[in-house]
């Protein structure tokens, strides 16, 4: 429809300038993280004698290795449970026209609105009474329940848009509903599963408020809480803090750039849910 004109070139320059401004904090982050503490020149001046000392020091003193492992455990465990139970639940919600099914769907919609601050405090008491506070299991349990409404909502919307002819054929051929789900429905759920996987992984990995409550005082922190604790402890030594921040950002950005196509379409895919 259009060709590359002068105006397009100007737009190109403007967009590149905007992106550089957006990327500016990351530049400062890396610049200060590799700077020796003795260097007190302006934060935007490129560091002349880069060092990795801050990284090794932050890694050891912040206990970031253990925290990274805990974050992986909590994220993988939670997301596996969330996807399993939500895709299961969406099947009757999308296919049954019974009154209980519509009632349950409304309950799920209610779950989308309820802010977690309301449930977080009473649940804190329950977790304490069950002696689950301070363990990663509390977090897996918590995220699994918290993300169910949204994920079930995504799956149900997707399933409702799928034709049910294949399932009906399977049922007429004598499949049980469970077999029909396993062999017919599940393979068709792949696109929405990518979306649910991406959105839930990011939500659980990045969560700060819940581990702050449920793991407080424990040695088993997730990465965001470990970083917050580290910042509180070394608040005057920003080069060290920046190294810790960089350590937590690098794996996330590495995964993001490696899988950017699926991740971006995963985020945009929620649109159709």
């Amino acid at each position, binding site marked *: 429809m259009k060709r*590359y004109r002068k105006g397009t070139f100007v*737009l*190109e320059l*403007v*967009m*590149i300038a905007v*992106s550089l401004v*957006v990327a500016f*904090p990351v530049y*400062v982050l890396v610049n200060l993280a590799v700077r020796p503490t003795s260097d007190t020149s302006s*934060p935007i001046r490129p560091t002349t004698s880069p060092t990795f000392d801050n990284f090794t020091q932050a890694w050891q003193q912040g206990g970031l290795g253990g925290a990274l492992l805990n974050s992986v455990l909590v994220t993988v465990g939670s997301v596996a449970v969330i996807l399993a*139970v*939500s895709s*299961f*639940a969406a099947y009757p919600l999308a296919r*049954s026209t*019974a009154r*209980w*099914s519509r009632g349950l769907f409304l309950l*799920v919609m209610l*779950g*989308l*609105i*309820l*802010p*977690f601050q*309301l449930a977080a*405090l*009473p649940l804190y008491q*329950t977790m304490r009474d069950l002696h689950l506070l301070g363990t990663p299991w509390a977090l897996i*349990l918590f995220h*699994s*329940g*918290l993300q169910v409404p949204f994920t079930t909502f995504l799956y149900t919307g997707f399933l409702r848009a799928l034709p049910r002819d294949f399932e009906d054929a399977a*049922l007429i*051929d*004598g499949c049980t*509903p469970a077999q029909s789900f396993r*062999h*017919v429905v*599940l*393979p*068709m759920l*792949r696109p929405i*599963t990518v979306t649910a996987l991406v959105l839930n992984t990011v939500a659980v990995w990045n969560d*700060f408020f819940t581990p702050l409550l449920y793991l407080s005082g424990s040695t088993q922190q997730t990465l*965001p809480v470990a*970083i917050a604790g580290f*910042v509180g402890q070394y608040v005057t030594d920003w080069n060290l803090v920046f190294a810790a*921040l960089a350590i*937590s*950002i690098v794996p996330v*950005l590495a995964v993001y*750039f490696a899988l*950017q196509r699926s*991740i*971006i379409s995963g*985020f*945009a895919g929620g*649109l159709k849910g």
Partner: protein
Amino acid sequence: MPAASRDPLPPPAAVVPSRPRDGRPRDGRRRAGSPWWFAVPAMVLFAFVVLVPSARGVYYAFTDWDGLAPDFSFIGFDNFTGLLDDPDAVRAIWHTLLIAVSITVIQNVFGLLLALGVNSLIKTRNVLRVALFAPAVITPIVTAYLWRNLLGPDGAVNSLLGAVGLGSLGQDWLGDPQLALWSIVGVVVWQFGGYSMVIFLAGLQSVPKEIHEAADIDGAGPVRRFWSITRPLLTPALTINLMLSIIGGIKLFDQVYALTGGGPGHATDTLSTLIYKDAFTLGEFGYSVALAVVLTIIVAVASTGQYLALARGERAAS
């Protein structure tokens, strides 16, 4: 689950038939509605983590429980009337609304402009799209700590302003009560503008090229084409974006906690930070859940109101 989904879609004939059950009808429609137990695991988790604690939260909002003592008494609406007399709470409600509305407006305008920019013919569009979205995947608490340093009096933002000759614009971005709230809004927009962009972009790419070409031939300029073609077809993307940013803005916690902790003074306290402080540092559990009930009502009103308004808009546009 992902392993199973890698199976190719089998033709219905390939599915292993089960033995017919005794006397149960083989009618597909009746049996399709039956697996209600599929929903049980999800609903048990949902009830344990969300529904039951939320209901208990509403109940505690009418008590004076401190969160620890074995006994407490029922005090009716005292927490809620007390809330209206508490200047901190009233201010926090105002800050919450101000932050939510500002983020919603600024982030969506910024996101839409970015989406239009990368949806053009520029050569760097793919690289820029990936780069501009990147902040949205980074842990918010981590970006907030990063910005806390950048926005400090000797931070990189003031240094950058100085380097381009605008040193006089330098500010104590987080220490000035007039500015701190807007700095928080700026950090959130920086992080999630790319998220709005991606959703708008998906909407823009769903607009068929032929319609634009036809309008071009009919003599419509770029502004006219945007207003008459793109804008109405963007409504679903706009619905999602407004919903995400308004609810995210109302619940905002991490960024406020890390950037200002609600300060300076109470200049940036929101409902979320006040709930946290009252429950865990002041031991006013009943009062804290009463604040959470107010937060719930605000979220519920905002999301249903917006849903209804946009559903009407969508019908009018189609």
